[in-house]
């Protein structure tokens, strides 16, 4: 099931929280939704899940409009809201049953799906505990289980890993990856590494507008022009090394990173590669390479570049 946003706009008072956004998520795609706080991520997600009615524009989930037929759309969406609201006074299994019944599952389906969800989300030992008694990581699993209980084709997760410890983050990520293979997933986060690890495609929004769209490699390439290498050359005087580096024809710029250990950062000219000339230079002078690493533009840099005003 695909999701299509058409000129979606949501205004709070004077602020345009989401400003004329259009994009499409294809079936089976995992889309990472990035942006600084208050960029409009949550608002967009709330519009897709029919919680908020947009001021203008439309969202179509599998071709069904949220304005015309919200109840039909809701049946196909599994949603984990921000801060994972749950009924704390209910035992896990009762809560899942409640959600399953609301989703209109038959009693047999309900029992079967609950058993499946408890298995998939690893809630076996916790199923009879009240939700209040669970640790944050387990609460998050309950949140995921309730979102998945009716086997939805579309999954919307609003910051699924906030407040979890590193082990739990890895577990939840694995879970999302596992589930995401067959479903269309939109996942918001401001942890860049997470989005990079789990998503096929990244969408960055800022002030209610889309500022970047593509896979993480595409985004990086967009931001990065020339090749940058970090190189350590040993066995010679660092000033001499510096001078020789500057003389290499493919290198545009040389910078000393750590003078004591003679670590340099070199930037190549357009479309040129400098690894080989550096090696040749070392060979000619009797120096040796301590390390040579390509410096990639990090997603953080891309993010900072497109979202800073």
């Amino acid at each position, binding site marked *: 099931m695909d999701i299509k946003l058409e000129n979606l706009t949501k205004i709070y008072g004077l602020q345009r929280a989401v400003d004329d956004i259009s994009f499409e998520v294809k079936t089976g795609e995992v889309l990472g939704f990035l942006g600084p706080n208050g960029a409009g991520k949550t608002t967009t997600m709330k519009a897709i899940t029919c919680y908020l009615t947009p001021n203008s524009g439309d969202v179509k989930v599998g071709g069904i409009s949220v304005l015309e037929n919200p109840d039909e759309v809701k049946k196909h969406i599994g949603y984990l809201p921000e801060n994972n609201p749950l*009924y704390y006074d209910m035992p896990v299994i009762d809560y899942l049953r*409640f959600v399953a019944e609301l989703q209109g599952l038959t009693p047999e389906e309900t029992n079967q799906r609950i058993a499946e969800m408890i298995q998939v989300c690893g809630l076996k030992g916790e199923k009879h505990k009240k939700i209040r008694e669970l640790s944050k990581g387990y609460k998050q699993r309950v949140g995921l289980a309730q979102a998945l209980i009716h086997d939805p084709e579309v999954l919307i997760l609003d910051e699924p890993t906030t407040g979890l410890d590193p082990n739990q983050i890895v577990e939840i990520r694995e879970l999302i990856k596992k589930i995401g293979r067959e479903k269309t997933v939109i996942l918001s986060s401001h942890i860049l590494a997470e989005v990079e690890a789990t998503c096929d495609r990244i969408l960055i929004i800022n002030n209610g507008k889309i500022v970047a769209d593509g896979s993480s490699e595409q985004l990086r390439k967009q931001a990065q022009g020339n090749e940058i290498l970090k190189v350590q050359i040993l066995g010679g005087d660092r000033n001499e090394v510096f001078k020789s580096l500057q003389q290499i024809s493919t290198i545009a710029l040389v910078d000393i990173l750590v003078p004591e250990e003679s670590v340099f950062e070199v930037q190549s000219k357009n479309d040129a590669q400098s690894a080989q000339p550096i090696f040749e230079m070392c060979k000619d002078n009797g120096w040796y390479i301590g390390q040579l690493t390509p410096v990639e533009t990090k997603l953080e840099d891309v993010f900072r570049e497109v979202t800073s005003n």
Partner: protein
Amino acid sequence: MKSIITITKRELNSFFDSLMAYIMIVAFLGFSGFFTWIQGRDVFFVNQASLQSFFSIAYWTLFFFIPALTMRQIAEERKTGTIEMLLTKPVSEWQIVSGKFLATLSLIVIALLLTIPYYITVSQLGPIDHGAVMLGYLGLILMSAAYVCIGIFTSSLTNNQIIAFLLALFIGIFFHIIFDILSNGLPGILGNISHYLSMSTHFESISRGVFDSKDIIYFLSIIVLGLVGSEAVLSKRD
């Protein structure tokens, strides 16, 4: 309809899980029992086999208990954010509101059913007007339904339970006593309107055994207004 029952079941369970239901039932039976059987102007003082003294005390205890039961219903869901979880499931605002209404009303009906021993006891003491007792109970249930709707409405307005409680009492007190007082003081049409708006007018006419369409329209309008109002407030979320 299935969704309404699902929500009703959950709400009722949450009343019983949180001890709220037990406290309410014990307090209700305690108060009404004390004033029906022990305090000075009780059944024995009246010297008639009638449940009139029970009905007039239940008329007041329910007035105070109902806002305490309804105050958290929507306010708490707003505060914890579970309302977002609910409304993104395939249920309508209307189903949520009706589910909560039915749950609270069921709890009150359970409390009233537990006073049936009073009825049996009194009927052993002398000839009792069974019709009047039935209508008395019906009057209490209708009155409760009206106050539950007012309570759910005020609970939908805020995410603070105390405000919801006080607001429900504030609105309730007009129906419960202020319109009654006004109707004695105000002349002509205003007096008539206040008289019609007063809960006691309708409650007393029902428990006297007179039950006509005026009373039904009165209770139904408060119930419908309260539910439609809550639904409208829930639908408007920005």
